[in-house]
């Protein structure tokens, strides 16, 4: 009677699983395309599409005064580019119709007798009608008109005081200086966030669906009856995705730097550490979802149910500070939030380990907890 041959060492097992997984992943060219090239295309398209800076708001002018002065006001108001003239109509009713039909989003009504009133020192009232469906756009458009006429009004008031021989009061001026992103462009800010988002979608959903698929086809059972330990199997399964995730990050950062001028001001080691820890959480989440799903369809929906709120509550799209307190508390358990902070601070603000250790620690804790839960559930299910 012979003793069963000893199991191969952990290293050999791991290498075998890794080899199998890599082959399986790169065999399907379409999957590789979707994992490597698709995120790149998306980043470029999104980088161009997402621009929260509001300008060129279509506007109509109702010049009921028709004087040289009112025409000059309309011209100068439109000159700063926030509003774009799409037409001039004769009456307020016609302007409202333009708004109803969506041809214009703002209407500026210059009152009758405006020039005469101003010359005579009587107050004149300019009316702005806004399409409020997009509050942000309405806000910016209304602000631009209010600012223009506010400045004009102040100038006029000053001139009148001086003419009356009164010394005009002091004027306080704000001198803005914008650090890190002086021209306030959206892409350098959005691209790191988009990278965090795409990495989540790619890794979590692909892992969850991949495992469910193997379970559906029965190949998972076949691998589990081999002497390979489940833990090593999981590690080996995730390893190719860590590599793919890394390549994705590098591709995205490269495209970001080259096309959109995203800087890398901080320590690259922080970025690498952050990426590894983040991939631990996203892959772990994919694993966890697959252990509670019975089909690929469920895995996909489960991955989605995790990914969407995680993206929304990450601060990538909208500031976390604007959320209500209880929701801000929820974001503390969101890995995307920490990774987005790591990316933005390293790239834009030039942060290092000293600035980002709390975020990295949070990612480590979250990743450890998620992976431990997922492994336990996996072992229980396939014991």
């Amino acid at each position, binding site marked *: 009677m012979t003793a069963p041959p000893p199991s191969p060492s952990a290293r050999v097992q791991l290498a075998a699983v890794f080899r199998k997984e890599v082959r399986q992943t790169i065999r399907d060219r*379409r999957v590789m395309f*979707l*994992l490597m090239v*698709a995120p790149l295309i998306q980043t470029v*398209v999104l980088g*161009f599409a997402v621009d*929260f800076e509001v300008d060129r708001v279509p506007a109509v002018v109702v010049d009921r005064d028709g004087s040289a002065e009112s025409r000059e006001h309309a011209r100068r108001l439109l000159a700063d580019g926030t509003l774009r003239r799409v037409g001039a109509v004769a009456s307020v009713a016609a302007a409202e119709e333009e708004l*109803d*039909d*969506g041809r214009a989003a703002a209407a500026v009504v210059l009152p009758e007798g405006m020039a005469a009133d*101003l010359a005579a020192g009587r*107050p*004149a*009232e*300019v009316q702005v009608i*806004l399409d*409020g*469906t*997009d*509050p*942000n*756009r*309405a*806000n910016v458009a*209304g*602000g631009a008109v209010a600012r223009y*006429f*506010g400045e004009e009004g102040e100038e*006029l008031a000053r001139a009148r005081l001086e003419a009356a021989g*009164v010394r005009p*009061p*002091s*004027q*306080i*001026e*704000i*001198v*803005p*200086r*914008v*650090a*890190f992103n002086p021209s*306030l*462009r*959206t892409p350098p*800010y959005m691209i790191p966030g988009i990278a965090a988002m795409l990495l989540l979608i*790619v890794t979590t959903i692909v892992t969850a*669906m991949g495992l469910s698929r193997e379970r559906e086809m029965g190949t998972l059972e076949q691998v589990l009856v081999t002497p390979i330990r489940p833990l090593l199997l999981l590690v080996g399964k995730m390893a190719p995705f860590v590599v793919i995730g890394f390549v994705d990050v590098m591709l995205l950062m490269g495209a970001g730097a080259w096309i959109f001028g995203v800087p890398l001001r901080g320590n690259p080691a922080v970025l690498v550490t952050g990426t590894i820890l983040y991939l631990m959480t996203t892959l772990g989440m994919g694993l966890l979802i697959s252990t509670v799903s*019975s089909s690929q369809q469920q895995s*996909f*929906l489960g991955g*989605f149910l995790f990914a*969407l709120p995680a993206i*929304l509550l990450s601060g990538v*799209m909208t*500031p976390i*500070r604007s*959320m209500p307190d209880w929701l801000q508390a929820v974001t503390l358990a969101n890995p995307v939030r920490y990774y987005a902070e790591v990316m933005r601070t390293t790239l834009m*603000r030039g942060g290092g380990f000293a*600035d980002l250790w709390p975020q990295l620690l949070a990612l480590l804790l979250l990743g450890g907890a998620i992976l431990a839960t997922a492994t336990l559930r996996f072992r229980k299910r396939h014991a």
Partner: protein
Amino acid sequence: MRERLRKALVRIGGMAAKETLHIRRDPRTLYLALGMPVLMLFLFGYGVSFDVDRVPIAVADLDRTESSRALVDALTASREMVSIGAASPGEAERLFRSGAALAVLVVPEGYARDVATGKRTRVQLLVDGADAVIANQLLAKADGLVRAETRRLAGPGLAGREPPLQVKVWTRYNPGARSALFMVPGLAAYLLAIGAVLLTALTVAGEWERGSMEQLFASPVGRLQIVLGKLLPYLVLGMLQLLLVLAFGVVAFDLPIRGDVALVFLVGLFFLVGMLGQGLLISVVAKNQLVATQAGALSAMLPSLLLSGMLVPIQNMPVPLQLLSRIVPARYLVQALRGVLLKGNGLDVLWPELAALAAFAVVILGIATARFQRRLA
């Protein structure tokens, strides 16, 4: 002729019944498909806003006079900005670098003197531009507050009189500027796109993967009938999602329905048919659920989110993307939903959107069925 039609309808009904059984067997998928819209609406409606709120700023008051304190108070009394401590410029700089403060206000020495003598005075505001959205709003807000402070300092000489030029702003459709009213129609489009494209793509790809599609082909049910039967239950599911989203929007966020409800569902129907066709096309090409999901995410989810005008106005995009957005059906749905719900538009205004959705549906269903017929033929 009538007999053939009856037979076809029976077969389509049979396919639809089979598919419904699939959906009912797997209630978790159903819960996820119906629970997701509610969760998303909830998060979007309550959690997501672009408004700047309680931004921490560091103050370096080098003047330390009553007037300088009044200016600092004027700036930080608003909800938008919160002072996290007066400090030396060096200390403020450190807070700014570490990200604890998003802006630094520097009031120069001699501020009070300049104000008293009527000179032009400058205060400095250093803003963290890494988040361009916050930075822009902060600059605009600070500008307004300082202007108000100028007027207050001017005293009765200027403030007492009426300003010569006044601006009256009148916001229509959404006077409260509530983000939820803006988001719900967009969100409806997004959720419908995800549900319809991905669920169809997955269910049909699943049949290919398991080989059960060949079995269906071997039955007397025609190809077109298989397609219609498989898509019908998802069309119903999509309409249910739309109803759910609207009902939730009305109940939780007071979403107005100023136009015709029937028009909302008509537009939704046209949109859904197109999305189901897209899902079908993806599944025929992909044959595999994993590839189908990623292709669906790439071709439906992201364009619906970013090129539809749901979050970012289309007019702000570069021209090539504006053109690209013309073939994104979600764009027309978002526009039509906002038109009907918020503006009360009717068919007279929205017919181009409806026509575009119909055109998309016809073209994509045509391609999908053609490819479907060719497979295995």
